[in-house]
C-alpha cells in the first residue's frame, strides 16, 4: 500500500487534497516561505542597528521593516507554525483517527491562509506599512499614509484560517479519539493543541472586529479610536490585547507540547507529572485571557485596572512554572540521549525559563513602567517566541521529520545547528535586556552612541543565528533526496504516530489501533 506522499503525485491531487498530512505539508512550505521573508527583514534591521546613527536605510524604511517583520512573523509564521504543520500532521495520528473531523474545512483553512498571507505581502510590495504590528491608534487610523487597510484585510482573512483550524481541532479531539484513547491517555501535545484551539476560536474574532474598525476609520472617517472624533485610543488597545495577549499563548503552548513529547523519549522514562502538565495547559489558556492589561501599565488605563492585571499576570506564570518543574524532574533517573531533537528541547528549556522569568519583571508594576516599550520587552518576547516556540518548532520538526518524509537527516549537522542557534540566539538577545534597562526604547532606528557596543554584540549574534537557521533548511532538503530510509520508529518512541509506517499511509490506520498509557518508556522489548 502506498504512503500519503506517493499515493497520487499529481499537482491537482495536492491542491485538492483533504488529507490532514498533506495539508500539514502545504502549511509547512507556506510558512517556511513567510519565515524567510520575516527573517530577511530582521537581518536588515540588525544590520541597521549595528551602528548608532541611522545610515543604512531611512527612518521610513526601517519603520516598514519592523512592521513587516512583526506582522509576518506573528501572523504568518508563529501562530500557524506548530498547530497548522505538526499539529495538522500529528493530531489525528496521535489520537488514532483517520483524519480531522472536517477535512474540507482544513483544506479551506490553508487556502484562506494563503490568500490572506499573499494579500498581506501585497500590502508590503505596494509600499509597506509603518505602524508596527500593533497598529496603535490614532497613528494607524489617521496619521500614517501607508497601506494599513490592505494589511488589515490580509490579517483579517488569515484570522479565519486560525478559527477554522481551532474549530477543527477541538471537534476532532472531542469526537474522533480511538475508543481507548481516554483524556488521561491523550498525548500532552494534543492537550496543548486543544488549549491553543480554545484561544484561536474565542480570541481571534475580537481581532477581526478590531481590524474592521481600523479599516473603517480610515475609509469612512469615523473616530472610534480617534479622540479628535470622539473616540478613545485606549479602547483599541483593550481590544487588540484581548486577542494579542492570548495569542502569545497560541505561540508558545504548542511548543510546550512538543517539548513534553521529546523529553520523555530521549530521557527514556515516563514523563513526570502528566496531569499537572495537561492541566497547566488549560490553565494557561484560561488565565491568558485575564492579563491583557499588563501591556497598558503606562498607557493611561486606570490605576486599579493596573493592579488587578498585574496580580493576574503573576498567576499566569505559575502554570508555566509547573511545566518547567515537571520537565526538569523528567530528567531524573532517565537514561538521557543527546540526539538533535533533545538538544533543541534542552535549548528550549533554558531559553523559555529565561523568557518566562524576565516576564515577571514586566508583570511587576513599578519595574514595568521603566521597562515597557524598551529593548527589555523586545528581548523578553523573543526569548518566548523565538527561544521558546521556534526552538520547539525546529525540535519537533527534527523529531517527526522521519515520520513525515520517511527519511533521516544527517545527525551531526542537526546537532551543530541546534548548538549554533542556541549560541546565536543568546548572543542576539541577552544584550538587549541590558539595553532595555539602560533605557533604549524600541523601534528606534538611530540611537545614542553609548548603546553601540551592546548593539554590535547583538548584531553579531544575529549572524550566527541566521547561519543556524540556514543549516536545517539545507540538510532537510538534502535528506529528501539522499536521506536514509527512517523506518516506522527511528527513535524507538512511544505514541500511536510511531506505530504506522513512515511516511504514514493515506488513511493512517487500517484498523483501530491499540492504545496504551502515554509515554511508556523504556519501551519493553525494544531496549
Amino acid at each position, binding site marked *: 500500500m502506498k504512503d500519503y506522499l506517493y499515493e497520487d503525485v499529481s499537482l491537482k491531487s495536492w491542491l485538492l487534497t483533504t488529507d490532514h498530512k498533506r495539508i500539514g505539508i502545504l502549511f509547512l512550505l507556506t510558512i517556511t516561505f513567510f519565515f524567510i521573508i520575516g527573517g530577511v527583514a530582521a537581518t536588515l534591521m540588525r544590520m541597521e542597528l549595528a551602528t548608532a546613527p541611522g545610515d543604512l536605510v531611512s527612518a521610513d524604511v526601517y519603520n516598514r521593516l519592523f512592521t513587516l517583520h512583526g506582522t509576518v512573523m506573528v501572523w504568518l509564521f508563529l501562530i500557524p507554525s506548530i498547530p497548522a504543520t505538526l499539529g495538522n500532521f500529528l493530531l489525528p495520528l496521535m489520537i488514532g483517527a483517520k483524519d480531522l473531523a472536517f477535512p474540507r474545512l482544513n483544506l479551506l483553512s490553508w487556502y484562506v491562509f494563503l490568500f490572506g498571507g499573499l494579500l498581506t505581502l501585497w500590502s508590503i510590495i505596494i509600499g509597506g506599512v509603518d505602524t508596527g504590528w500593533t497598529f496603535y491608534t490614532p497613528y494607524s487610523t489617521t496619521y500614517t499614509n501607508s497601506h494599513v487597510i490592505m494589511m488589515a484585510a490580509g490579517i483579517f482573512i488569515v484570522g479565519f484560517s486560525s478559527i477554522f483550524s481551532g474549530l477543527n481541532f477541538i471537534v476532532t479531539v*472531542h469526537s474522533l479519539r480511538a475508543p481507548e484513547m481516554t483524556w488521561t491517555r491523550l498525548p500532552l501535545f494534543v492537550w496543548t493543541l486543544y488549549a491553543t484551539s*480554545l484561544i484561536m476560536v*474565542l480570541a481571534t474574532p*475580537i481581532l477581526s472586529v478590531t481590524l474592521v474598525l481600523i479599516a473603517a476609520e480610515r475609509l469612512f472617517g469615523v473616530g472610534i479610536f480617534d479622540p479628535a472624533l470622539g473616540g478613545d485610543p*485606549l*479602547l483599541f488597545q*483593550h*481590544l487588540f490585547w*484581548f486577542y494579542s495577549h492570548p495569542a502569545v499563548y497560541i505561540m508558545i503552548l504548542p511548543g510546550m507540547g512538543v517539548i513534553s513529547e521529546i523529553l520523555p523519549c530521549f530521557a527514556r522514562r515516563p514523563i513526570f507529572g502528566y496531569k499537572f502538565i495537561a492541566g497547566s495547559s488549560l490553565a494557561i489558556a484560561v488565565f491568558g*485571557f*485575564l492579563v*491583557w*492589561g499588563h501591556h497598558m501599565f503606562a498607557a493611561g*488605563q*486606570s*490605576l*486599579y*485596572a493596573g493592579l*488587578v*492585571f498585574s496580580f493576574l499576570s503573576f498567576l499566569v506564570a505559575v502554570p508555566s512554572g509547573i511545566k518547567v518543574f515537571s520537565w526538569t524532574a523528567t530528567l531524573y533517573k532517565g537514561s538521557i540521549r543527546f540526539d538533535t531533537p533533545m538538544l533543541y528541547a534542552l535549548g528550549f528549556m533554558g531559553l523559555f525559563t529565561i523568557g518566562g522569568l524576565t516576564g515577571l519583571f514586566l508583570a511587576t508594576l513599578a519595574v514595568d513602567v521603566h521597562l515597557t516599550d524598551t529593548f527589555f520587552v523586545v528581548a523578553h518576547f523573543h526569548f518566548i517566541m523565538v527561544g521558546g516556540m521556534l526552538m520547539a518548532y525546529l525540535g519537533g520538526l527534527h523529531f517527526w521529520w522521519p515520520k513525515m518524509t520517511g527519511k533521516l537527516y544527517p545527525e551531526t549537522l542537526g546537532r551543530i545547528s541546534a548548538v549554533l542557534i542556541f549560541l546565536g540566539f543568546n548572543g542576539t538577545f541577552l544584550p538587549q535586556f541590558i539595553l532595555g534597562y539602560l533605557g533604549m526604547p524600541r523601534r528606534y532606528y538611530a540611537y545614542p552612541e553609548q548603546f553601540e557596543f551592546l548593539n554590535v554584540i547583538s548584531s553579531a549574534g544575529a549572524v550566527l543565528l541566521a547561519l543556524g537557521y540556514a543549516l536545517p533548511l539545507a540538510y532537510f532538503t538534502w535528506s529528501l533526496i539522499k536521506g536514509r530510509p527512517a523506518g516506522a520508529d527511528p527513535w524507538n518512541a512511544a505514541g500511536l504516530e510511531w506505530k504506522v509506517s513512515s511516511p504514514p499511509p493515506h488513511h493512517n490506520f487500517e484498523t483501530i489501533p491499540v492504545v496504551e498509557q502515554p509515554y511508556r518508556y523504556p519501551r519493553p522489548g525494544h531496549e
Partner: protein
Amino acid sequence: MKTHLLVWLSLMLLLGLTVVAWQYHLGFLMALAIAVTKAALVIAFFMHLRKESPLTKFVAGAVLFWLLILFGFTLADYFSRLGF
C-alpha cells in the same frame, strides 16, 4: 411543537414589553434584561440547549464566561478611570 409555540408567544410578548417600555423611557439595564431573557429562551428551547449533551452546555457556558471577561475587565477600566 407545543413548546415551540409557547416560546414563540413569550418571545412576542417580550418584544411587546420592550416596545411598551420604550414609550416610558427604556433604560439600558431594562433593555439588557429583556434581551437576555429572549436570548435565553431561544438558546434553551429553539436551539435545544436544554436537551444537548453536557459538552455542548459546557461550550455555551464557556462563551458566557469569555464574554464576562471581555466586558468585565474592559468596563472595569472605564468605570474606575472615568467614573461613569
